[in-house]
């Protein structure tokens, strides 16, 4: 009756599971690559849509969780054995195990092992010799990192939703669900950070009647559980246009991704054959128009594919030629922003911290203080000797073998 759960547990907690699952996804990736150039995106979409694939991916965090349990139990059992609390010695917990028909005369052996730099502990029944610090905490951190990474990827794949909105200075903050307050100010400036060169601050007033708040670039701010992720900058403007065949004129508001200067964006003038292409001019003094707020627009007016006019529009100015008149009476800073609802991101960030901590714990321990353990336990007329090392194995094995030789010699002396 217990066979099925035992088999399931053996599979889920097996160290063979991650390479098999990852290998499967790799094969799938290669297969998809034959059909499309958007391989990764297709693989993500398939995993999101097909429960079987999501289930397979879920095996990875599940496996690391199970490994944490298995390895913790194993560590605790070994700890019990080494502290003399276990009644018998389980040889599977150690790298090497041997039984000697020798009397348990440990004092001489204890002195010898102490001289080799091992910390010893003994009673009449057993002798334990230890050196170095266990890598188990680093391993646990690593497994927790794996859990968070793949858990985060899974949560992100299954639950991520992105709502892209234009955040415009002076307009309502377009938070999901409304009542996000008013965007009081958008500031773009130089950053002193070592990674970020520019900083952006979206200041919002009257957020849900609670007063002001601000959202920066990184780490992204949060609003009602969603991350506020600025993507690119632009301008929200109102454009007035009069043409000979459009004497009544036309007024259009548009949100255009015009940053950095020189980047073109076009707006259709609906119901007419006209199209307007705008860009920001680079100021002669080398300043950044988005930072200073002094924006000078370059434009091209097309009728169908024909270029009618090209010129520039200074701030608040008007262009007029051949019966065409063009002006931009109002413009404001705009930040195209993604409102991202994704709890997986937090797990992925955590995995980065855990991996870093695991690495910086593992490296010095493994190089400088590797754990080495020996256990000698009397079993009637014989002694069970066990040894395990996480590093410096050859040296440790040499000391262990000499310790066994010493026990053997003690036996002959006793005889």
């Amino acid at each position, binding site marked *: 009756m217990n066979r099925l759960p035992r088999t399931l547990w053996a599979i889920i907690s*097996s*160290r*063979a599971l991650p*390479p098999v699952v990852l*290998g499967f996804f790799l*094969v799938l*990736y*290669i297969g998809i*690559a034959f059909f499309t*150039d*958007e*391989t*990764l*995106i297709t693989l*993500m979409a398939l995993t999101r849509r097909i429960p079987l694939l999501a289930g397979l991916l879920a095996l990875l965090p599940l496996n690391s969780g199970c490994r944490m349990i298995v390895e913790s139990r194993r560590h605790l059992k070994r700890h019990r054995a080494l502290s003399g609390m276990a009644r018998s010695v389980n040889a*599977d917990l150690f*790298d*090497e*195990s*041997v039984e000697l028909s020798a009397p348990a005369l440990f004092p001489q052996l204890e002195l010898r092992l102490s001289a080799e730099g091992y910390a010893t502990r003994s009673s009449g029944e057993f002798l334990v010799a230890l050196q170095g610090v266990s890598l188990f905490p680093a391993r646990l951190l690593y497994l927790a990192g794996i859990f968070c990474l793949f858990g985060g990827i899974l949560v*992100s794949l299954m639950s991520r939703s992105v709502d892209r909105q234009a955040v415009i200075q002076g307009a309502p903050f377009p938070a999901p669900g409304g009542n996000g307050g008013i965007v009081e100010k958008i500031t773009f400036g130089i*950053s002193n950070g*070592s*990674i*970020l*060169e*520019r*900083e*952006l601050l979206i200041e919002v007033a009257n957020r849900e009647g609670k007063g002001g708040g601000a959202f920066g*670039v*990184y*780490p*992204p701010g949060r609003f009602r559980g969603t*991350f506020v*992720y*600025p*993507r*690119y*900058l632009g301008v929200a403007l109102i454009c007035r246009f009069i043409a000979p065949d459009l004497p009544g004129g036309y007024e259009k508001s548009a949100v255009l991704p015009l*940053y*950095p200067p020189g980047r073109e964006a076009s707006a259709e003038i609906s119901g007419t054959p006209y199209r307007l292409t705008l860009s920001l001019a680079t100021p002669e003094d080398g300043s950044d128009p988005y930072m200073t707020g002094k924006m000078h627009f370059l434009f091209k007016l097309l009728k169908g594919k024909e270029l009618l006019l090209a010129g520039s529009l200074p701030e608040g100015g008007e262009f007029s030629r051949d019966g065409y008149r063009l002006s931009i009476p109002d413009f404001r800073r705009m930040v195209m922003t993604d409102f*991202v609802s*994704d709890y*997986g*991101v937090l797990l*992925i*960030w955590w995995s980065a911290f855990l991996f870093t901590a695991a690495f910086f714990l593992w490296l010095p321990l493994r190089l400088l203080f590797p754990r080495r353990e020996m256990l000698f336990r009397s079993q009637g007329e014989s002694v069970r*000797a066990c*040894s395990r090392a996480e590093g410096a194995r050859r040296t440790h*094995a040499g000391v*262990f*073998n*000499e310790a*066994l*030789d010493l026990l*053997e010699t003690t036996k002959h002396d006793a005889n």
Partner: protein
Amino acid sequence: MQFVFKLIPQLIAWTIMVLLLLRGIPGRRRGVSLWAAGGFTMGVVGYALLARLASGTVPLGIIRCAVGGSFFLLWVVAVAAVYRSTVRDFPLVRVERFVESPFCAWGGGAIVGMVAGGISASLFPGSESGTVRFLVFSTLALAGVLLVVVARKVEWRLAPSIGVTPSSLPAVLVALLLFSSSSSLVLDLFSPLSMKVMKGTHDFVHQFMESILIPDHIFIRPAIWGYIGFLFGKEVGFWGGMVIWFFPVILISLAIYLEPLPSVAQIRQGAQRRRLLAAAISKKRRTLVIPAIALAALAGAAYRSSFPNVEYWDPKPLSVTATPAGELFIPRKGEVDLEDGRLHKYLYKQGGKEVRFFVLMTPAGKLTVVLDACAICKPDGYGQTEGMVLCYYCKTLIPLDTVGKPGGCNPVPVSFLEREDGVRLDALTLVNSWNRTVQTTTKSSGEGK
């Protein structure tokens, strides 16, 4: 003559493969020899028949799939070998039983023989007459069988200390197959692998940055963005490809190195213990000779792939000018013959901008006009080789009959009018198409996400 010259390394590789198969499966030498010889003959005959009955790309596609599949299997073996060496209770007993079975030994010999035979046969140019082809393929099959006999004789005299472990045998066999296949542009796997790595890394970095909400390049210091941009370049493709290429053999070497030494705890004579351990360490070191041969073969394959012994048709672009109405005209016959099946490159200059494009008559007899650039890579252009054009940037081979179709690494098609006297293009459309393509590919290669 060139065929014979190209064949020599393949046959040497085949002899080494058989030799190592015999050394790696010592209990079944006779069976392995027979199956390997039979496999090689079948590979040659199979290729000859398929090349005659189906399109030329079908047998090549089958060989490519077989070589690619074997490389994937090598990765599986490498990962399993590392787990086997480092994890005590790794469940591989049934797999090991299967690997030791005669079915696996004979089947392995036959499959290796078939692929090696197919690769060798594929080097023969398809333009020769039927009788010559028959003679060449018969001689090739006979040579393959004779080399099996030679390999048996050599293996007999080889030092018994050179051992082949169950994991290093597939490593060296696959490496030699990859070395053989790298002699042909169509069968080569390293360049397509590098390209896929480049595109895969680009996709992954892009997705990763979006997933953890990293800001766009306008916020980040150019030096930092330069490092990120490096991840989008072909150098990452090349070095990433190198890692994937060599890593399974390195893992297998690592597995051999990490294999625990025999337990000597029950031996109470120090000298005997040391002798036993020294013998085990020495055996380990000798076993590493085979992965070293595999690494050398893989390095040879990567070198042949990076510097192929192929001459590309890559004419200097001819300068063209537009009419006052903004039209470009390329005459069908004149300085160049557009119908000769070769690509003909042209250069159009407008206001400091240069646009490269080429005109080609496809095997279907249709003229096509495309940019000398694709929608993915930097615009390094294309060269033509037998039945293919090649993207210089990512080394992707594009069959001639798909030139003019959009997508992937195909050159970007340009709309044109085909007339009796030549082809006509709109200069503005051409310039816009070039600008759009080059802007996008330059951006994806480091200047933006």
